[in-house]
């Protein structure tokens, strides 16, 4: 009886289909490898080509240089000047400054809101908070940059009486707005995934709800909250459009939050369009890209590891 024959129509087709799916699944892995290879490839002349090293060796990127005889050695980023200067230190300080301001702004708000949403909020309130954060996360960074450039900068300058409209404070706060959703989401997730058995145990020995939150849930979820901060920091370091538009883009060494500044990412965005392909400047920009890639890669790796460990621990306790 033919109709009861359950042999698949074509074993070959099954085989090809499965292999096709399997090969496609490796796209993400291949992509991440290709990204590293192709960005690092354009940065290698800094290590290999003597011609490029004349202007931009690793040594020149990091240490003080004497650019004109008789003058003091300096760290300077002036790639377009007659004597191109490629010190990364001003950019490094700028990147760090903006990211730190962003974290100072975003951590209290993100973690605070996460604690409220997970511990105190009614179900209805929680259903309001989550979409709000999601909408905040959905604002394109160019729109945040625009807002910081036109509105926030003016407001800050007028209230604080600043000399420079565009500065580290302005860029940092706008960057913080972009980072809040990441910190909130990861922290809230960590707290809500604390097993109910732990909460119940604390309640059973007589703790009241807020004692449960602060002596039981928070300590248990702390690694997750920390991971949220780390991931947020990674985003703050790599974010481009906001700092490009709101920071003033002056590559100066200064620890003041009210001076203009410039980050790694903004430098790439501002200069790559005009650079000569294959010039030392071009190589240095790709080298900065490599640094950003490696740094965010490590940060994400660390964050994910902590979260995976935490998940394992919580699920273990439940079982």
């Amino acid at each position, binding site marked *: 009886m033919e109709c009861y024959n359950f042999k698949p129509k074509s074993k070959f087709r099954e085989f090809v289909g499965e292999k096709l799916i399997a090969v496609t699944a490796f796209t993400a892995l291949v992509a991440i490898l290709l990204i590293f290879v192709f960005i690092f490839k354009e940065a290698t002349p800094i290590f290999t080509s003597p011609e490029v090293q004349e202007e931009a060796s690793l040594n020149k990127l990091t240490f003080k240089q004497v650019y004109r005889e008789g003058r003091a050695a300096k760290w300077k980023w002036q790639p377009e000047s007659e004597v191109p200067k490629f010190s990364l230190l001003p950019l490094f300080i700028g990147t760090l400054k903006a990211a730190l301001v962003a974290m100072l702004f975003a951590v209290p*708000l993100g973690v*605070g809101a996460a604690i409220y949403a997970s511990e105190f909020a009614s179900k209805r309130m929680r259903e309001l908070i989550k979409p709000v954060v999601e909408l905040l996360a959905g*604002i394109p960074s160019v*729109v945040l940059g625009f807002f910081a*450039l036109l509105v926030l900068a003016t407001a800050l300058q007028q209230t604080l009486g600043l000399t420079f409209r565009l500065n580290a404070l302005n860029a940092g706060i706008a960057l913080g707005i972009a980072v809040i959703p990441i910190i909130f989401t990861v922290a809230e997730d960590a707290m809500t995934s604390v097993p109910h058995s732990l909460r119940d145990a604390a309640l059973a020995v007589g703790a009241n709800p807020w004692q449960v939150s602060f002596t039981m849930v928070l300590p248990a979820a702390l690694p997750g909250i920390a991971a949220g901060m780390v991931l947020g920091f990674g985003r703050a370091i*790599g974010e481009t459009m906001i700092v490009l538009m709101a920071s003033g883009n002056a590559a100066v060494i200064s620890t003041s939050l009210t001076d203009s500044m410039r980050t790694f990412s903004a430098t790439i965005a501002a200069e790559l369009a005009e650079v000569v392909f294959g010039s030392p400047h071009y190589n240095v920009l790709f080298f900065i890209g490599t640094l950003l890639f490696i740094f965010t890669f490590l940060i994400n790796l660390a964050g*994910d590891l902590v979260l995976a460990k935490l998940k394992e621990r919580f699920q273990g306790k439940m079982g």
Partner: protein
Amino acid sequence: MNIAADKRPTAAIGYSATYQYKPKSSGLLPRSLTFLAVLIIIAILAVIMFNIVCGGIGVISWEFLTHPPERGMEAGGIFPAIFGTVALVILMTIAVIPIGVLTAIYLQEYTRPDSKGIRLIRLAINNLAGVPSIVFGLFGLGFFIQWIGGGIDSLFFEGGRPVWGQPAIVWAALTLALLTLPVVIISTEEALRTIPRELKDASYALGATKLQTIRRVILPQALPGILTGGILAVSRGAGEVAPIMFTGAAYYLPYLPSKLNDQFMELGYHIYVMATQSPDVEATKPILYGTVLVLLVLTFMLNSAAIMIRSRIRSRRVNV
């Protein structure tokens, strides 16, 4: 707590200090402080929205949406930027949906979660989501334009001007596809996990093969999740500027992109250039606000749609 205390007969407990669980504080302070954080976040969103809606609503008109810019962006509309953005995300979707969905199917249906290869793929997906968007831009330039595009040129179009080895809408779309790949994978996977086992078992019991089951049972069931992923990817892709700055976006073009290797105008890039490089900021301000409003409304509508579809999927999981 010492053992002696534990052994005391219950009746003798006079409620020593250690057993007094009366809260020292009512918890009002942490409660109100964290609530303040929530209020500030809501206020930030409200202020941004209010400012942009107020600044932009007056400019929005049919003419603004359907006409090209005039007089150095000081008048006219933004139609080419809208057209370019839509064309860009359509191309991106064509590239990212199949790859993302097949990856999710492989991870959920074909493999065990603890195998080494799978862990590696997951690691790659997570990290791809964390790579700064400007790095994607560098990659698009180095890989798609110079390596692939330049390679095609040197094979088929020797000598002349670059045909494919130059910024183009297809390279920008592919760069964005890589950037949004994790969004599609994660969202599809979530949907795949909600499909009840019984449905698959029923399909196998009827004699369907794995591929047939995927095509006829799993994919239709996962459609809302795939849709959510696609919408989120489009909303993310429409807002990203850094990856397309060097891979195809142009500030002003007198024509609309019609071929894959044309350059294009785009809303986000339009905003960036108008805001930072306009010779007369005050003159372009209304149009700038209008453009921002259009982009913001576009991404918010897409995000709200995704949130709604997703909450529907999640409630389905509870019901089965």
